């Protein structure tokens, strides 16, 4: 029987070269405070390292944070690396300094949701919880 009260597991990944992870760490601890189990990748990870960690950790959610402006090249690469590991089902979200039109494009392209810089972190947590609740409920026996 699928268990709908499952604990949500999240990987917060920082792809690319920017060296600022205060935002990523803040989101990680807010998600923790909302009852999730959160793994933080550390700085300067390649898309392949992030996807591999997500696969080993069997996370439900991958959250990417980027401030360098390289999101349009790096985010889709993480998505592809996840897919190549059979992990295309993870809930993929992103945040950082991202223009609205890029957000829209990514949301049409495998990303469930992009959060802009001003987003309230509790709202991010609530959004993830709502989304995962639906997924856990829909989950069948197939693994």
């Amino acid at each position, binding site marked *: 029987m699928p268990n709908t009260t499952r604990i949500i597991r999240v990987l917060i990944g920082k792809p690319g070269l920017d060296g600022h992870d205060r935002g990523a760490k803040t989101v990680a601890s807010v998600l923790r*405070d909302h009852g999730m189990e959160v793994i933080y990748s*550390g700085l300067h990870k390649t898309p392949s390292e992030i996807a591999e960690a997500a*696969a080993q950790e069997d996370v439900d959610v991958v959250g990417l944070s980027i401030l360098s402006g390289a999101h349009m090249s790096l985010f889709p690469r993480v998505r592809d690396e996840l897919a190549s590991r059979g992990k295309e089902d993870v809930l993929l979200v992103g945040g950082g300094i991202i223009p609205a039109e890029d957000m829209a494009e990514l949301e049409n392209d495998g990303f469930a949701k992009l959060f802009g810089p001003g987003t309230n972190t509790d709202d991010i947590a609530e959004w993830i919880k709502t989304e995962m609740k639906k997924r856990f409920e829909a989950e069948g*026996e197939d*693994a």
Partner: protein
Amino acid sequence: MIVAEKKAPIAERLMNGDRNAVARLITWAENGDGRFPKALAQFYPQVGKARRLGVTGPPGAGKSTLVNELVGHLRTQDRSVGVLAVDPSSPFTGGALLGDRIRMESRTSDPKVFIRSMASRSSHGGLARATIDACDVMDAFGFDDVLVETVGVGQAEYDVVSAADTVVVVLCPGAGDSIQAMKSGLLEVADVLVVNKDDMPGAQRLAADLGEAIHIRLAGRGKWITPVVMCSAGRGTGIEDVAKAIEEHRSFLGEMGLKQARNTKRVGQVRMVASEWVDQAVWSPEPRWNGTTCAAHVQQELSAGSTPYDIARNLRDAIMAGKLQDQPELREQA
């Protein structure tokens, strides 16, 4: 219409080298998912080849850093390694920040290494069960070595690491925690004691104190005398000495000793799981005892003036005599 391709059973995928099967089975073990025991039944014949190492000690002693170094050492011998890194869950929110992986990140792209972070979650028995299950998964997958890191703060963690063949306790100078560890029984579970951060003042002194404490406790022939080894995981020095001490403990146990020790631990595991299941079944919200739930029955008895001990004795006798009602979900679980 596209018909979804049916995947092979997960146990089969595990034994055929599918790393996602490792990851998913560990998730099932953590969640107490009913599918886990069924899968285990299929891969259990493959369990028993991996060497299991437990690493524990107070927070900040350098366990994750040392585990990372030990993985590096094993990789130079071309051994494949599975790592389970357990961090505490918040007792208030149930959430957790799992930070061990970050110290081992350089291993993520090594295809012969697999790192899994686990949160301790709430129940004491649950953690020990899940980590033993996760070790079994990694073992059946074919990892040569399985390393389990837990914070050594209480009984739950001792139970976890004592499922390993060899237990390494990591301490470091300058932390009051290390003194506390000496008092609190952490030494008792150690097969190898590591004084990490020997680049810091006080390491020599701590090692000497520990050596003394051990010799007082462990005088006697034919027994394993826990060695005290100094290293600096941060600088990567002394790692070979730690690895050598672990090897020596294994040789000391020998094939027979290892087998015996493992069998004893399996008995403990069965006892733990069975107790958990009996407890769940007996205290379930279904009518169990004289047409009512156990909890309600106990309340009736209390109102009738029975003492807690009398009621408990009756309950035990009723369980032993098979007098509680049929428990369908128990049969299903098995």
